[in-house]
């Protein structure tokens, strides 16, 4: 009891401290003039780390020597090494190979026929999954062909494949290392944290410096971006292998190598394959954004179409990305979930490798037939459906018919929510903000957490990014707020009704499969560019975990607690608001954490539709080839995301402790 009492008392002290800090910050606002250094961070206090960083990276990429070997040569060689399999795969799948000759026509090796590739995908889908999956895959690949997107799609697919192979390989190696050496793991975890929250654009600039503009730089950025989750999953999966299996490996007298690669990794294969599924989806999302630096492919098509206002084309490419994402997700998921089933009879090589043989046969047959019927090899241009500007009419019809509603919604949101919030964030004195961040951090998790928050926000101010950071923050805070309100309402509905839950689960599954970039397309079409479409895109993207975790939390309340409440005479309303929702709070907060992380992830992409925060700095850095600025601004975003993450986790621990529930992970 005394413990309870003292924790109540200290809670009161904490709340008082937070209120006092806010009061001081507010007092700053009114009492100090804007010329005061504590209100607006003075320009001559800022330090410029970006320029030296840029200079250093440029030096690194041009003149730096490693044992007399130019560093640039090493990176170019690496790039060349990666480009080989990529070009071969891209050639085989989509573009073919052209060898130019003096005094002769160029020698051309054509790519594999589109029909052959489609049949193979369908065979694989049927083998690992259901007929429905096979049908869906067939439709997806037909879609690529019919809408004239075959080559772009194959290029994107090749990029994803190569990125996944390299990322998977390095990721598993790092994961194994992290498993074997806990200190390596402890060292890598914070690095992964930063790598995962650092905006993609920040990676792109240095990659351009080292690997040149084009698909290889994009590929390298993709690998680096997608690697941490794979490494993490690997370490977790190996740690989760039952102890007895590990002991068996030792008792059987297996060497360390055998224990790792014959026992541990195969025993963890299911989780590893699920990690691979994540890796594939993340790579696809990144490859598409990386189109910006000349990776081409479907992402590039969307971008080009949007720029030249060919809405039909943009939609077609957007759908192609969507379909590809769903196909890859379901296919790799089916592979991960496949169960081993024994074979009743011993079968010959041909029987055992039926899939491979039938794929090869299909390929051979289509190649042979395409000599007679060229349409089987290359989908004829004459049959493609050119949407071009077709969609423009539809879009303008929508915008003219619903003009009042659209403008009403947009302007209303801007006037009532976006603008006031933005003005508020920009007017808060920086010192007061940092003070509040520090006190809240202390109240939630002690002085270490407070120090982290204060350090990161002070660094942002020092680097001269305060204003930009506040602009980023205001959009994130508002969209997180909106996502949580809508997500909570929908999740609550799903948590209470089975039918709603089924529908919402299907919706959330699709929302979470779609690459970030896809969200921008409809938003730009309807709302043009600016903060409002960015806000809508972030809400659409980040709402999924809000729904999912709320529903899961409500459904996860233990049956005996519900029965207990029912027996104490709770009515339906009391059951929801006084039992289920409070007990689901820790899970909902987990959802909030995810929503915040996803909002930051999407924020970065919204720079493409003209937001003005730190994300814009990272985007502009690409065109100016200014890696220092890109990285520093990116670290600013990553830092803010990490502060949010740690604060929410600390809050969650406190809450779970108070409710007597296990701390959710």
């Amino acid at each position, binding site marked *: 009891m005394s413990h309870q009492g003292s924790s109540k008392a200290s809670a009161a002290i904490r709340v008082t401290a937070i209120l006092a800090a806010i009061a001081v910050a507010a007092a700053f606002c009114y009492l100090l003039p804007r010329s005061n250094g504590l209100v607006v961070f003075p320009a001559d206090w800022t330090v410029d780390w970006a320029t030296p960083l840029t200079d250093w990276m440029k030096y690194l990429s041009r003149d730096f020597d490693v044992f007399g070997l130019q560093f640039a040569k090493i990176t170019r060689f690496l790039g060349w090494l990666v480009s080989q399999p990529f070009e071969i795969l891209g050639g085989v799948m989509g573009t073919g190979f052209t060898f130019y000759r003096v005094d002769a026509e160029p020698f051309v090796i054509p790519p594999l026929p589109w029909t052959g590739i489609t049949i193979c995908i369908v065979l694989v889908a049927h083998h690992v999954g259901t007929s429905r999956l096979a049908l869906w895959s067939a439709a997806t690949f037909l879609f690529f062909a019919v809408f004239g997107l075959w080559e772009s799609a194959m290029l994107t697919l090749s990029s994803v494949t190569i990125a996944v192979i390299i990322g998977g390989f390095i990721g598993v190696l790092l994961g194994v290392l992290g498993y074997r050496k806990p200190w390596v793991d402890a060292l890598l975890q914070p690095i992964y944290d930063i790598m995962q929250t650092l905006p993609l654009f920040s990676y792109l600039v240095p990659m351009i410096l080292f690997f040149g503009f084009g698909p290889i730089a994009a590929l390298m950025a993709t690998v680096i971006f997608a690697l941490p989750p794979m490494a993490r999953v690997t370490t977790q999966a190996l740690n989760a292998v039952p102890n007895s299996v590990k*002991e068996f490996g*030792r*008792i059987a*007298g*297996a060497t360390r190598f055998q224990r790792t690669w014959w026992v541990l990794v195969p025993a963890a294969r299911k989780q590893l394959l699920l990690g691979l599924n994540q890796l594939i989806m993340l790579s696809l999302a990144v490859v598409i954004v990386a189109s910006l630096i000349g990776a081409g492919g479907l992402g590039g098509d969307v971008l080009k179409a949007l720029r030249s206002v060919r809405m039909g084309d943009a939609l077609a490419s957007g759908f192609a990305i969507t379909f590809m994402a769903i196909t890859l997700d379901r296919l790799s998921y089916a592979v991960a979930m496949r169960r*081993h*089933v*024994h074979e009743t009879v011993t079968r010959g090589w041909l029987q055992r490798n039926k899939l491979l043989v039938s794929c090869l046969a299909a390929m051979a047959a289509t190649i042979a037939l395409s000599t007679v019927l060229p349409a089987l090899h290359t989908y004829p241009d004459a049959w493609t459906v050119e949407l071009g500007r077709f969609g423009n009419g539809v879009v303008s019809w929508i915008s003219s018919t619903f003009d009042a509603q659209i403008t009403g919604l947009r302007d209303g949101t801007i006037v009532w929510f976006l603008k006031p919030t933005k003005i508020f964030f920009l007017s808060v004195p920086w010192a007061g903000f940092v003070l509040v961040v520090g006190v809240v951090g202390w109240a939630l998790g002690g002085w270490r957490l407070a120090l982290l928050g204060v350090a990161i926000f002070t660094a942002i101010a020092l680097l001269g990014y305060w204003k930009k950071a506040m602009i980023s923050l205001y959009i994130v805070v508002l969209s997180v707020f909106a996502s949580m309100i809508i997500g909570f309402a929908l999740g609550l509905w799903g948590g209470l009704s089975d039918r709603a839950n089924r529908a919402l689960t299907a919706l959330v599954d699709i929302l979470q499969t779609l690459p970030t970039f896809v969200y921008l397309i409809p938003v730009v079409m309807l709302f043009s560019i600016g903060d409002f479409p960015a806000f809508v895109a972030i809400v659409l993207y980040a709402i999924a975990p809000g729904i999912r975790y709320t529903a899961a939390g409500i459904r996860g309340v233990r049956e005996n607690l519900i029965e207990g409440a029912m027996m104490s005479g709770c009515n339906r309303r009391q059951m929801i608001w006084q039992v289920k929702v409070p007990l689901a709070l820790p899970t909902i907060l987990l959802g909030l954490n995810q929503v915040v992380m996803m909002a930051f992830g999407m924020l970065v992409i919204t720079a493409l539709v003209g937001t003005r925060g730190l994300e814009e700095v990272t985007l502009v850095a690409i065109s100016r080839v200014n890696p220092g600025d890109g990285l520093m601004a990116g670290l600013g975003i990553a830092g803010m995301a990490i502060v949010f993450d740690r604060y929410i986790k600390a809050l969650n621990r406190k809450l779970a402790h108070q409710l007597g529930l296990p701390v959710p992970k």
Partner: protein
Amino acid sequence: MTTQKAFLECKGVWKVFGPGAEDFATNPGGEASTEEFSAHGLIAGVRDASLSVAKGEIFIIMGLSGSGKSTLVRCMTGLHELTAGHVLIDGIDINNISEKELVKLRRKKISMVFQDFALLPHLTVLGNIAFPLKVQGVPRAEREATARKMIELVGLSGRESYYPDELSGGQQQRVGIARSLTTQPEVWFLDEPFSALDPLIRQEMQSEFLRLQAMLHKTIVFITHDFDEAIRLADRMAVMKDGEIVQMGTPEEFILNPANDYIREFTKHIPKDKVLKVGSIANGSDAPTNDQPLQASASLQSVAEQVIAGDGRHPVIDAAGQVIGSLHRSELGPYLL
């Protein structure tokens, strides 16, 4: 059996978890209580355990959870490093050999069966059973031939190509047993092999285990938390509590002379007539008065009817037919309830 030469020996084995464990365990720790250990931030997993197992003997270590039985067996297999003491397998001190020699020992001399089976999910029954030979580099055809023999031995013929998650618990443990026998080990460790199984399957597997041992004559260390199982299977057994061996001896010795109340609590519910042999309660001082001899090695249960129906003192004879004592029905009474 105790007179036979020991094949596996533990001498003063200590396993203490925590920082600075070694100094404490060997110095003042010898007399320290569990509380004193935890006051130093240490946990005594095994405290000064000494035992010896003869060749071909089934030695059972029984204890409730947290008693240190699993820790002790992990000390014997080198999975845990000892804090103090020695473990000798066939004269080799396993804590004083190189990693390489330890691997060799594990490949040739010892094997282990696990409570949760510890089968590799990606391999078939055949692949799992052949696995210990695979790590030794035995060619495929040879190791699969050996594995097939093991499959037959444990009665899983026809299931070679099944994957573990297609099998029942009992079948999975048969695979675990077969796998642990492929390398023809001399010492066979079984860590609660039947604890995860349903009671009926457990009995079936116990019989199966005895059948196998009758054929194979391995030196066995068998861990269980089930006193009945220990009594049923053991040649000799040890009961552990709080990391210490409380009592060690044959099942009959446990029934006849429980060392303390803790042991007595376990023996209370054991049907004594099933465990005890005629020889161990025969009266050596009074001469037999009838000519209906009883075998010394027979269980009381099997002769009870005859003794109760008979008149006077039955002669008790050993395997050679020599009279070693006598038994009257009044002497049987205390053991039949």
